[in-house]
């Protein structure tokens, strides 16, 4: 059996059409599902249907605050709370044959953090709206 890891440094993230990769240092896409309960009288444990629940995906990302006026953190993310945005994630980086995920998501929160002994950081959380479209980069 062969194995082949991939390094996180190549990850690509765009939000609302803006590439935020260079000021992002961590991101997480959680694919989750609601459960559709079908428990009836006489069952000894909860029973759940197979494949009937809605998807309930979430996405979060964080990084360092880029001050660039038109393409920086404030220009792209700040004030977008509650907005439905188009996101693209390339978990293995950019390149022909590598996977890509595209989805719409509502920004739940955006946080700026100012430690006294480090550069300014930011973090944002999203709830996926609809489905995640998986594709292969061409």
């Amino acid at each position, binding site marked *: 059996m062969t194995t082949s890891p991939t390094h996180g*440094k*190549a990850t690509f993230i765009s939000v609302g059409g803006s590439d935020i990769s260079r*000021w*992002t*240092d961590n991101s997480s896409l959680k694919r989750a599902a609601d459960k559709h309960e079908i428990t009836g009288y006489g069952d000894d444990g909860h029973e759940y249907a197979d494949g009937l629940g809605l998807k309930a995906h979430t996405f979060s990302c964080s990084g*360092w605050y880029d001050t660039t006026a038109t393409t920086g953190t404030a220009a792209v993310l700040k004030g977008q709370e509650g907005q439905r945005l188009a996101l693209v994630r390339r978990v293995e980086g950019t390149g022909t044959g590598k996977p890509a995920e595209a989805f719409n998501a509502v920004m739940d929160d955006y946080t700026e953090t100012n430690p006294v002994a480090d*550069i300014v950081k930011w973090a944002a959380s999203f709830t996926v709206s609809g489905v995640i479209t998986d594709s292969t980069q061409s």
Partner: protein
Amino acid sequence: MNLVAVYERLDARLATIDGLRHSPFPPAAVNVPHAFPEWPDGPDYDLSYDRGLHRLTVPVRVVVCPLGSVDRAAFAAVSAYANATGERSVKAALEADDDATEFQVIAVTRASFGVVTIAAIDYYSASFDVTIWIGAS
């Protein structure tokens, strides 16, 4: 990231301190008072995706006087260099260059004092911990 350009930028900032001799790299010999950046710790690469941010820690050394000639004037001089503010403050001189072309953030976080040997001569000196963040260009 161009280390030579970063070091020359640090040297240019040290040049703004009146009366302080300076070099953009560790010299073979010094003529006190003399300041220069020593070899870096790092770079720490890939602090964000797509080579978006790197970090460099550079000790900046200020050689004040030969060890045998430490006196009140030498102590006053090194005190001025170690001050957080003022015309001779190394911290103020270096941090005035925030958002330079060669790097985007610079922070002088600590000073320490001790003896350094250069060209077989022991000197009293101060060393400043300088952290530099370099974004993608």
